[in-house]
């Protein structure tokens, strides 16, 4: 497998999904996971984690023996300064801010190995992301040269270049796992290097595994990819140590948890909050997370006169997130485009019913959850009012979500992926 984010260094949704799937799949196959960075003290059962920041001497000696890099041998220069995740306002973020001081306006290939780019922990994104993506592709392909394997399985666009290169060199089938697309992050009109990599890789791939039918539809309709090779597999959710704790205030609590960025629909959350508060003052709303829309939303909340009922926490660490979940009465995820939405499943584990947008993959899994289109503020508000004012409806919603959630395990996801591997390998023969 080819991955980018991975715990414990980066605990975003992509990293957690890669860990969950990798751990479950390794029960059935020999799995090597090539990552830009690993923490050598962090071991995963049966998974051979290879971090470009901690390569063995043997790997270093045997790498880069192949003469030409096929996929990008013809490319000389590409524009840099891509920022797929805009940095948050610094004062509301506890996240370690790492900036690379050397600005590289253009990427030159065929220089050195590029491995030095992965030496600093936590600096995978940033203004020279494209340099890293290319360096990762070169190194991963060089490592693959000296390994025996049957399937190339690449997670999200940062590793797709590597996947294509390895497929070009070895002829092994390429499986792309789509956790998120530039369509989701930057909107339907976004074009550029990332979109191009996504489209080209999906065209070259043998098998595409989106994390939901919702995302599969985007692969087919928006990127024009052949339906027949798209096979969605829903994410699982690792069981968490859920607990409930008493709130310190009398009102109900409705939670938004995620990056405060257009994709997650934070503005809709605010509209929903204002709408609910018009009818029911017995509730507090919390927006936990940070992102480039944060300041605008803080001011908008003040403008809507809900600042004493809508609280922004900024970035929270896992313990604080769990503390918040343990007090929450309703989880609200009005995402504009959400390939999956693992956080809604985590909320369910804390016995919190979710109100989610139709434009999310998790809506396919939480079959009985209350749903609305992300823009349908009235309907979202009505759902929330029902859940915070009707204890019976709340209890039923929790029970229903628990049932749904039983079917969402990484073991089940892994079995589906292995079945897809098998049928792919069968066609190759």
């Amino acid at each position: 497998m080819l991955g980018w984010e991975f715990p414990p260094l980066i605990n975003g949704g992509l990293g957690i999904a890669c860990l969950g799937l990798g751990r479950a799949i390794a029960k059935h196959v020999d799995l090597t996971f090539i990552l830009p960075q690993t923490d050598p003290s962090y071991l995963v059962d049966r998974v051979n984690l290879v971090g470009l920041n901690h390569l063995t001497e043997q790997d270093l000696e045997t790498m880069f023996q192949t003469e030409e890099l096929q996929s990008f041998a013809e490319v000389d220069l590409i524009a840099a300064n891509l920022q797929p995740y805009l940095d948050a306002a610094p004062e509301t973020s506890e996240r370690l801010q790492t900036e690379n001081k050397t600005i590289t306006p253009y990427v030159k290939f065929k220089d050195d190995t590029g491995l030095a780019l992965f030496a600093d922990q936590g600096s995978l994104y940033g203004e020279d992301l494209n340099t890293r993506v290319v360096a990762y592709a070169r190194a991963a392909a060089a490592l693959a040269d000296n390994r025996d394997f049957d399937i190339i399985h690449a997670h999200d666009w940062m590793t797709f270049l590597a996947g294509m290169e390895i497929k070009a060199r070895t002829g092994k089938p390429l499986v792309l796992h789509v956790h998120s697309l530039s369509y989701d992050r930057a909107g339907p009109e976004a074009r550029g290097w990332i979109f191009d990599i996504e489209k080209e890789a999906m065209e070259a791939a043998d098998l595409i595994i989106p994390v939901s039918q919702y995302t599969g539809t985007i692969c087919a309709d928006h990127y024009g990819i052949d339906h027949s090779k798209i096979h969605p597999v829903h994410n699982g959710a690792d069981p968490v140590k859920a607990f409930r704790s008493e709130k310190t205030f009398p009102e109900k609590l409705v939670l938004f948890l995620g990056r405060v960025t257009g994709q997650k629909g934070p503005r809709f959350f605010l509209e929903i909050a204002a709408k609910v508060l018009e009818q029911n003052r017995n509730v507090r709303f919390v927006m936990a997370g940070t992102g480039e829309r944060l300041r605008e939303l803080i001011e908008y909340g003040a403008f809507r006169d809900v600042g004493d009922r809508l609280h922004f926490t900024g970035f929270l660490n896992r313990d604080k997130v769990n503390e918040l979940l343990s007090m929450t009465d309703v989880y609200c995820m009005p995402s504009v485009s959400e390939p999956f939405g693992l956080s809604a499943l985590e909320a369910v584990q804390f016995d919190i019913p979710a109100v989610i947008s139709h434009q999310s993959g998790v809506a396919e899994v939480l079959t009985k959850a209350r749903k609305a289109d992300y823009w349908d503020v009235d309907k979202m508000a009505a759902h929330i009012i029902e859940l915070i004012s009707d204890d019976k409806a709340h209890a039923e919603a929790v029970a229903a979500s628990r049932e749904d959630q039983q079917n969402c395990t990484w073991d089940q996801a892994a079995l589906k992926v292995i079945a897809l591997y098998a049928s792919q390998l069968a066609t190759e023969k």
Partner: protein
Amino acid sequence: MPELCLYFQVHQPNRLKNYTFFDIGKDPFYENDELNRDILSTVSDRSYLPANSLFTELIEAHPGKVKLTLSLSGVVLEQLEHHRPDVLASFQDLVATGAVELLCETYYHSLCYRASGKEFTRQVEKQMETLKRLFNKTPTVFRHTELIYFNELAAFVEELGFKAQLAEGIEHVLNGRSPNHLYQSPNLESMKTILRNNTLSDDLAFRFADPHWKGYPLTPKTYAQWVKASGGDLVGIFLDYETIGEHIERPSGIFRFWKELPAALEAQNITMTTPSEALEKFESAGEYDCPEITSWADTAKDISAWRSNPMQEEAKAKILSLEKAVKAHDNPELLHQWSKMQTSDHFYYMCTKGGTDGEVHKHFNPYASPYDAYLTFMNALSDLQIRVGL
């Protein structure tokens, strides 16, 4: 020959601690005592103490000549009593020289007048009691927070029995007239308005240490000539006390400037006066008709420093709206906590202005951004709402 009326404002707010969502309903203490104590101590050592001893010496060296006017907010007096009684004593000694006139203001350095005349009056009375207790003084001249002034307020202040109120000399209200006279708000019985000469005041408040300023370096002699040249009856030089040694630091020569100024003024035959003395000596030069709200803050000299974005509007409106609920509890500590959250600085920190105003807003500002200031305030406000049963 104009006389010089020199007035200094002394104030420090009770800054809030990092009060998060998780504290709501759990933690009834909102202030960062340690930070407030540290800032008070720093300012005391750099500014208040050396300035007090400088002026005490000057008063002794020029008997009957050196006179100044002070206003100390109730909240800074409270902080001094609690953290730095030595500094309070030094202010008391200065006032005891007899050459210092004290002004009255709202105890909490607040912005509550429009929302509640009753609350405003309570804070004025509390300040009068405090000044009586600590300095044995009963002021007859009033200044509102950051020199806020407008006709309606002036009428209210006259009702409270004050003989004069201080105001920023706003150019378009003066309409070509000099700020260096007493004026009177329309329809008032007798209360006078004493205006700040903003050019000569801002020379000392902002420009003194600016090497790019054409007046740099400013000598007491030149300044005294400027005062003389500006004419009229009295020149109001109204400044924050912290401009001596804190906003304008010692290496700039600011202490030397003040030390040498009385002699330079004497050389120009300029006498110093206090507001009350000026009321005895001078007549009103006409009407000062100021319906809009003005202040000495920022370049706009209006209330945009505290009321120019929705965060400030909401925070201010919501804290003031708690008056009834808070007072219904008949709990002095709760009332005091609520009142301290009316202090203008909380809203000042939420200001999103940039440029030179933005730079000034950063003085003693505990927040990384106005957004943090707002969020922290609203969390504390939410807790207060719960405590009063809203």
